[in-house]
């Protein structure tokens, strides 16, 4: 379910690091909790985002939720697919529906995040207590 080469946050974002590029998205758990996604608000190319800070919003039929940056860097690309078909976030959150690509300013930040097993355990615990 959760790709083993991604890193995860407690706010349910993921990041995939390759070299100095980070690809950021939200997890399958997050999309499921949000429900039908109708709009995604993303930063402009060139914007600087900081780990732990809000960088965009996802709007579903139920609510508007903040997206927190898992790692810091400068936005190099925002996923244009999501402005036309935001519902892709519900069908392919770990793949086609990535949100932004950034040039990492501190690649070591990712290692502090959860790996797939830890994240799976984290959400299992959440679901058990719910």
């Amino acid at each position: 379910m959760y790709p083993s080469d991604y890193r995860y946050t407690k706010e349910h974002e993921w990041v995939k690091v390759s070299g100095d590029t980070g690809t950021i998205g939200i997890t399958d758990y997050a999309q499921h909790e949000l429900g039908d996604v109708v709009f995604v608000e993303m930063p402009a190319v060139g914007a600087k985002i900081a780990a732990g800070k809000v960088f965009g919003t996802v709007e579903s039929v139920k609510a508007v939720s903040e997206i927190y940056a898992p790692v810091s860097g400068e936005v190099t690309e925002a996923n244009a697919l999501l402005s036309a078909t935001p519902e892709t976030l519900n069908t392919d959150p770990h793949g086609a529906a990535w949100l932004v690509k950034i040039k990492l300013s501190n690649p070591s930040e990712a290692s502090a995040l959860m790996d797939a097993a830890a994240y799976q355990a984290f959400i299992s615990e959440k679901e058990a207590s719910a």
Partner: protein
Amino acid sequence: MRYLPKGAAERREMLDAVGAPSIENLFSSIPEQFRLKEPLRLPAAMSEQEIIEYFRARAAENSVGYTSFLGAGVYSHLRSVVTDSLIQRGEFLTSYTPYQAEISQGTLQAIFEYQTLMCQLTGMEVSNASMWDGSTATTEAVLMAERLTGRHRVLVARSLHPEYRQVLDTYTRNLGLRIDEIGFTGTGQLDANRLEGAITSETAAVVVQSPNFFGILEQIPRLASVAHAKGALLVVSITEGVSLGAVRPPVEADIVAMEGQSFGLPQSYGGPYAGVIATREKFVRQMPGRLAGETVDSTGKRGYVLTLATREQHIRREKATSNICTNQALCALAVNIHLCLLGKEGLKELAAQNIAKARFALDELEKIRGVRRSFSGPFFNEFVVEFPRSVKMINAELLKHKIIGPLPAGSYFSDLTKRGLFCVTETVSRAEIERMAAAIRDILAKPI
């Protein structure tokens, strides 16, 4: 809502339930010196008959039979009894904000129709379900422009209604927004050259009212291109909606904020009115309030939903687009009904009547020696004239003739003393206009 009377026994029961020895005890956290020691000074209870007598006496104090030439943001227009009888239906009158929106199909349909009419009138693509009033809608438009551009400076026409400006100042006092004013020329229109000189790449919005406070129509296309050249948004505020029956809608604007009072709402001491905010579809996510949409249900039948509400304060609290996007649903419904009764042709005819009467009144006034039109720009149903004497003095005399004269512009603009802002709508007859002009001629002919 039921009125639930309570006596000593009920009070005791409630105090026991919360474990308080007395009502005074409930206020013990308020320091002694701030507590009221004596009873409130309220009149003694009255019987039903006494209350009826009391209000009859108050009603008899009302002045009747006066002809008014006041406008300046609040307009006297004919209203149909149909509007009042429809909005007083219990289904509409008693319902509050539809938090479980889709249960209230009738309410949503009414909102949807209102939004559609507002888009048709303003030339915009989307309208919300209504705001508090024209002044707060104008302010919300400015805040919206700030969010959309990420800029924090605003250029506001000096000819924006001074009270709208006050509301804007109150809202933005602690928001770090810098507001600069742009004056007007001899036409009464915004000084476009000054605007070009003042606008920078840090300007979020240019705010202009049309017809403006002096009744003058602004050159919207030109102002829009000046604003857009610097990446700023053009906010157009409209206090007199009836003008849209004759004037080209401000299609070049990015956000239109309007007061809906002219469409079926009585003047009644300044409210409640209905604020309109309409914009381009691409800006809809930053528009405050809610939006009703038309859709089909699972069997293909037409139905209405709250399409956009997720950024409202009851869902998003501190991160809502606005925390004061109170929806004037009942007033918006009155606007909807009034406009449907008028129809497209009716609105055009109404606007034409207003133009004709205002023009006639100005012509009559200009025949009087010493009376001059102040601004040369095109106007709708309001205009400013300059008198050789104080407007307040003239008005005091006019009152003796049961005429409520023009608004003294000097009360709002210190450089516009001796100028009166007249409003002439379809509610004033030709004979009344002639009587007013004759009275002013007599007043000015008398030695001071």
